[in-house]
């Protein structure tokens, strides 16, 4: 969105002039003969064979090189957030790409692009962190958990539509148990945000028979471990990729046009009846 200062009448192109024909990177770069650098590290010497790929993903997204166990936790959550079922919207794009014979790269990135959604994927992770961090600030300011839940539900006509809790398509979320186990195995403690998330879940279970979903668990865990909503969004930008690839491969390896082919009559036309074209 365009913002402009009222006092900005004088033409001043200094900021653009100082960036012409020069790149100033806060991240790193490749200098042939000298090395490849990332955030002050020599990538070939410091990373290859010594750090996990996911540690480098986190470094590039946040500027911080995390402990191996946090990176391992992220790797586990990536398994939870993408699976090869082409009924899921982004995965179906992969399947349609396969049946249309696009490249695997086109299939995977378009599926990833589809997951930039208000309903699922990386953007909801950002919203999840925003919610639990807001709720925690309310909680520490003196609001009760009951009040927080009531206020949130009131935004949706009393229904338990709270980011990170309940879930479309199905009730319950098997991934939460899997990630709780992973967290325990990695020896990572439960923090204040997750404690609050459990308290919210307890109320939702009692009132609506709805539980925390993977977004809620993940958002609280990441908040406890110092991640901002934007950082989580950035780290998880391609979180659905592998499931999309799988769905692409499945339909690419079959005959073209055989993924959910449609008869003309499989589309319900509700528009104007055939009419004459005016001259």
């Amino acid at each position, binding site marked *: *969105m*365009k*913002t*402009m*200062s*009222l006092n*900005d*009448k004088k*033409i001043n*192109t200094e900021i*653009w002039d100082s960036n012409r*024909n*020069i*790149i*100033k*990177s*806060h*991240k*790193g*770069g490749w*200098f*042939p003969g000298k090395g490849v*650098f990332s955030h002050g590290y020599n990538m070939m010497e410091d990373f290859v064979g010594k750090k996990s790929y996911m540690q480098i993903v986190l470094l590039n997204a946040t500027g911080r090189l995390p402990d191996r166990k946090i990176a391992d936790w992220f790797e586990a959550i990536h398994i939870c957030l993408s699976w090869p079922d082409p009924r899921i919207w982004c995965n179906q794009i992969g399947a349609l790409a396969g049946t249309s014979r696009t490249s695997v790269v*086109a299939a995977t990135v*378009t599926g990833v*692009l589809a997951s930039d959604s208000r309903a699922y994927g990386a953007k909801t992770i950002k919203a999840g962190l925003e919610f639990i961090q807001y709720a925690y600030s309310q909680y520490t300011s003196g609001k009760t958990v009951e009040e927080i839940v009531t206020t949130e539900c009131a935004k949706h006509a009393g229904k338990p539509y709270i980011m990170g809790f309940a879930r*479309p*398509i*199905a*009730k*319950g*979320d098997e991934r939460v*148990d899997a990630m*709780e186990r992973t967290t325990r195995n990695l020896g990572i403690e*439960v923090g204040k945000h997750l*404690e609050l998330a*459990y308290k919210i*879940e*307890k109320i939702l*279970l009692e009132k609506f028979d*709805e*539980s*925390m979903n993977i977004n809620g668990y993940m958002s609280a865990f990441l908040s406890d471990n110092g991640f901002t909503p934007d950082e989580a969004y950035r780290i998880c930008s391609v979180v659905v990729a592998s499931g999309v690839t799988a769905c692409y491969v499945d339909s690419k390896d079959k005959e073209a046009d055989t993924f959910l*082919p*449609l*008869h*003309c*009559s*499989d*589309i*319900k*036309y*509700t*528009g*104007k*009846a*055939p*009419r004459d*074209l*005016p001259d």
Partner: protein
Amino acid sequence: MSSQNRTKVKSRKEAFVEKTETRIWYEEPSNDNPYITKSNHCHGYDILELAKKRSFVDVLYLLFRGELPTAENAKILEHLMIALINPGPRHPATRAAMNTGIGKTDPAHILPIGLTIMGGEHSGASEVEPSMRFLRKNRKKPVNEVVDILRRGKNNSEELLTPGFGSKFGSVEILPQKFVDQILQLPGDHQTLEWANEFCKRMNTFNISWLPTGLAAAVLSDLGFQPRTCIGIFQLLSAPGLLAHGMELANKPVTAMPFISDENYVIE
């Protein structure tokens, strides 16, 4: 804290529709193969008839508005389409398309890549929707009143929120104003465009005037397009230029575009 006695995972059995619905397009099946169409209708009009008797601009308008445009509106839309046909070789979206071409990427990817960058909130398609909403909210008010409100700002902030209107590289753009002047010469309803033009004249003192996104927002508002649709319309109208620039470089060596030297690459 351990897991609680959670609900066992079970389907909600939501009532999904059996068929996808559309009001836009009717495909009449052939007599012997239900997958093959024997005629296509766009909002009721046979596509063959449209091809024979109508322009591309007419059918584009029909697709999104559900009715054919008047001759005046078709001319206005065509004018806008030409105004936006190429964001130019310095626009980030075009440069993305050019990088795609010079990098020997599959040509099928030039448009998706360029259009994705064209979807940005800064000088891109995602600026068009808020711009249209800004115009819808204000166009019935006297320009002076809106300018005064903006000048006062919230909490005396110096920041003005005028999506679609502003400056580029420190000064106002020149060409969008020229297109506005041309379009205002065309017959038709220019209520929003006229209001926005008056607004720009008043805001010029503050280095705020037409941006291409504001031009699109004002014209498409007058043509009756919906704000959310116009994110994609703006991308669509810029597509020819992106593709042309991308393809222009597709068969050239990688040395045909600058590569910043190590001396001009600084890790801060």
